[in-house]
């Protein structure tokens, strides 16, 4: 690995100052499970690595039924799934947090890092999008909030401008009769990169028989995670049925624009989006009916 400097700011302001004065030669470090690999492989060249772990706001994990969930950008996956309150309120988030890498990776990797790394295959991103997650960003000119579906702009690229850092991800409190699920397809059971992934959040009416609304998001089938808005919107007001779910899955397939690569073909990936959309919708409905 090339020589780097290591900065350990204790406040957001300090971090923003370091980031602003180094431009694209500096990058925030959370768990390092992407960044350190990229630096070592020479896929990224930096002067300064800025540690996130000394800044309280980037390490916050808090939940309340009024304000929802705040996940500091550096909070590792295991802290999320070991928090009983968070795990029971957001089982759809736990789907992702427990399948990113193996246990060693989950000891370090964060949802914030997954978002900033902006891989099309980021397993936590579809769920954050469908749950209405918002990226809270602070930079030299103040703070702004960006919906998760607008955060990634290309493979490895995101909306952060020079000097800006992702502080936290805010996810609203789950609505009554709602449920979320994320599934991915990989050739083995663990430790692999999604060939395709689908996250789904549904809100049902009190009878549990009709969709009030739904949001669907896709991984690994486009240059960025995809928010399949039309597919989700097609379910609003419809009964929970094989027909409505089939229709939504076909719309989701239409939003998938994958490539052929070593992990899968276009045809397989589009097919998988259909299958996974139906499965995650059914799983999300089951969760919505249960709570």
């Amino acid at each position, binding site marked *: 690995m090339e020589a*780097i400097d290591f900065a350990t700011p204790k406040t957001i302001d300090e971090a923003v100052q370091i980031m602003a004065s180094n431009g694209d030669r500096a990058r925030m470090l959370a768990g*390092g499970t992407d960044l350190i690999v990229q630096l070592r492989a020479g896929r990224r060249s930096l002067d300064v690595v800025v*540690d996130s772990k000394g800044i309280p706001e980037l390490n916050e994990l808090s939940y309340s039924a009024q304000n929802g969930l705040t996940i500091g950008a550096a909070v590792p996956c295991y802290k999320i799934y070991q928090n009983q309150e968070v795990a029971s309120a957001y089982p759809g988030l736990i789907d992702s947090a427990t399948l990113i890498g193996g246990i060693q990776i989950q000891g370090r990797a964060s949802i914030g890092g997954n978002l900033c790394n902006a891989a099309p295959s980021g397993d936590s991103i579809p769920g954050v999008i469908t749950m209405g997650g918002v990226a809270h960003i602070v930079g030299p000119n103040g703070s702004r909030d960006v919906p998760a579906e607008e955060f990634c702009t290309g493979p490895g690229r995101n909306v952060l401008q020079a000097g800006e850092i992702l502080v936290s991800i805010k996810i609203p409190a789950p609505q009554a009769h709602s449920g979320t699920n994320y599934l991915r397809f990989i050739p083995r059971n663990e430790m692999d990169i999604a060939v395709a992934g689908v996250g789904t959040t549904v809100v049902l009416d009190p009878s549990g028989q009709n969709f009030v609304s739904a949001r669907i998001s896709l991984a690994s089938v486009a240059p960025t995670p995809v928010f399949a808005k039309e597919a989700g919107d097609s379910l609003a007001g419809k009964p929970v049925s094989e027909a409505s779910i089939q229709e939504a899955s076909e719309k989701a397939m239409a939003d998938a624009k994958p490539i052929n690569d070593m992990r899968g073909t276009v045809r397989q990936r589009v097919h998988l989006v259909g299958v996974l959309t139906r499965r995650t919708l059914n799983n999300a409905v089951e969760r919505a009916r249960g709570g």
Partner: protein
Amino acid sequence: MPGLVHVQTTINGVQTDFLAEPRQSLLEVLRDVLGKTGTKEGCNDGNCGACTVNLDGRIVDSCLVLAVETQGSEITTIEGLATADGLHPIQQAFLEQAALQCGICTPGFIMASKGLLDQEPDADEARIRHWLAGNLCRCTGYDKIVRAVLEAEKQTK
């Protein structure tokens, strides 16, 4: 050129200070600076788990930790498991069950297994296999490793 950083840690219960360049991984420092060569380098990119150590109570791939990040941390490596009384029960079980051939992956498997048994002493076979998915072994076919962990569970109760 960035200089060396003074890092204070506790490794295997012993206060250990070292100097590291920010670009050096914890794995490099353990092996090349501190001479603790029990922790192995396999893939060096977080896939194989051979470099697994315990960092502040969680298992991590030490190739994916910058040594300078460990300021103030407690680290346990494979060298910290055996005591004056003998091998750790997991090490003993790996020997008795012949859960290794070439041995390169073994320290990582033992550190990962310890991480599991520390928090889930009743883990069943499926849970053990899932937990150890971040550790690769190209010799044993895993069955003997899983049997050793199940045996170690019995011994530690």
